[in-house]
């Protein structure tokens, strides 16, 4: 738990095309049954570390989603009282922060204490001092999250989104050709 960052969802514009492609690759074309857990599993595959989804309670003014990065796993905390679509969007938002390697620019205090199931007291203490991104990173994450949610909840006839992105194609190529490592 030496490196621990916390992020919150925000608003923004798309700018993360290949991340969206990679995140959506592998799901069947209908996408209606894809939930936050499936997105987390997909992100775990892409990151190579476990991604755990934790349900949390959101007090007024608190962010809808939070994520923690430890050496062992990525923990994404989503408000379990939010709608299914909002949970999906918040999960995608946090995962895009992680996949894009966004770095928090400062630490601030949360507006008021939160109770989050499944976390230790030490983790909750860290959550009170959370990391914040700059506006560009927030716009990227939120734009990407909305694109992911729209693709997963759009009519099945929407073309294109099931095709793997170039990063995913390279990973598959590396596996078939015996390359040890794929770095962008």
């Amino acid at each position, binding site marked *: 738990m030496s490196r621990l960052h916390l992020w919150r969802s925000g608003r923004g514009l798309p700018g993360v095309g290949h991340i969206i492609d990679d995140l959506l690759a592998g799901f069947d074309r209908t996408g209606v049954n894809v939930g936050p857990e499936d997105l987390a599993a997909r992100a775990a595959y892409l990151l190579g570390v476990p991604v755990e989804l934790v349900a949390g309670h959101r007090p007024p003014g608190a962010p809808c989603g939070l994520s923690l990065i430890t050496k062992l796993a990525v923990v994404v905390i989503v408000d379990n009282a939010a709608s299914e679509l909002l949970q999906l969007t918040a999960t995608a938002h946090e995962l895009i922060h992680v996949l894009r390697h966004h770095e928090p620019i400062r630490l601030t205090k949360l507006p008021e204490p939160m109770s989050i199931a499944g976390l230790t007291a030490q983790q909750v203490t860290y959550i009170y001092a959370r990391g914040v991104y700059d506006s560009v990173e927030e716009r990227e994450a939120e734009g990407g999250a909305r694109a992911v949610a729209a693709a997963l909840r759009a009519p099945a006839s929407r073309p294109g989104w*099931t095709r*793997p992105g170039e990063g995913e194609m*390279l990973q598959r190529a590396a596996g078939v*050709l*015996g390359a040890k490592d794929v770095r962008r």
Partner: protein
Amino acid sequence: MNDGLYGTAAIVSWLAVVYRLFGHRQQRFTGPQPWWLTIGFALGAGCITVSIPPVWTWVDRTSGVPNLTIPISHALGISYTACMMSMLATWTSTPAGAAARIASRWIATLAGIAVMVALFMLAPSQPENATTFMALDAHRPYYAEYTLVMLAVFASTQIHIAALCVRLARAGGDAWLRRGLRIMGTYGMCGVLYTLLRLADVFAPETDYPAVRYEPVTRLVLFLGMMCAPIGLTMPGWGPQLNRTESSLRALYAYARLAPLARAVERHADHLVLNQSAHPSGAGLLRDPRWHATGRVIEYLDLRSALSERIAAAPVTQFRRRARRLGLRGEREAGAVDAAALHWSLARPVDRPRFVMPEPAAPLGNGQLAARAEDATAHAVRTASAYHNRLMMRYLTAGTKRTANVDAL
């Protein structure tokens, strides 16, 4: 010409098959369908092997059908490209989409082969020609249709292979993967060029330019294409091994060049010698030359640290001036000055140098540690080379005296 070119391409293709089979055995390949590539290599190797004139003649005489090798090699060739397309489909599509694309590709390939065989059987028999059959006979009735069907099936894959591999090579991946994909893109372009040249064979009689004249170009293009695929698509696997071999050779070279400094450490401060395994013999050294070379660098740095007070008192300015007089500049000058300072410090028997724990270094980011270690090794090698040069050391340190401070140490 065909013997040499096609024979070389066949050997490379069969080596690629063997390499892939070993890879499967060692479970080196992961991903959805690595067998497509292995089977494809085997089909490609078969295609190019039967095209070697002596094999061609043997097949024809054994079967009793003149030029039977033509449909055999072409069927193997387009099956080979179908395998490549199947592999690419597993990269570019979801599993369900890939299955549909693979099925449609193989239906088209098998249908094409059936039509080609039918046309070959309908075509009037031609005298056996193991080298220039396509150039001389591709325009004849039935053979022309045969060639057009074969090229239609073949060309449709080549454009896709070239475009996708070039695109992926530009997208990223590690260096060997990018190289391999670029070479595979060249294969696709060779395939397109081969298609155009064979198409020209069909329509050559309409022009006054005989196809036999550019047949050597066609063979070269085919040879290049058949070399590109096995090399390009196995390169991501064996390429990194070349890097490791090069790195080991460089480490061995550095280890050997550091010997003068290692001898100095042994003679003047044997308590700083790391351990016996730092001076291995034979297999031990070959097993991990970088570890042993780094051991010698550490010993040298420890010796410098132990002699730091003496070295600080050395007339470095004079060493530098004399080194510049010898024409040494930059890193070589720095190495020579360091060697002279060491030589000056060790010029007469001294008490056992005390080891001083160096100050802890600042934390380094990713890759900086390796870069710093390489720099330290390179500098130690330059210092060792200068230290080994007794004439240079005598010249650089001649006429210098120890200060009272140094003698008091």
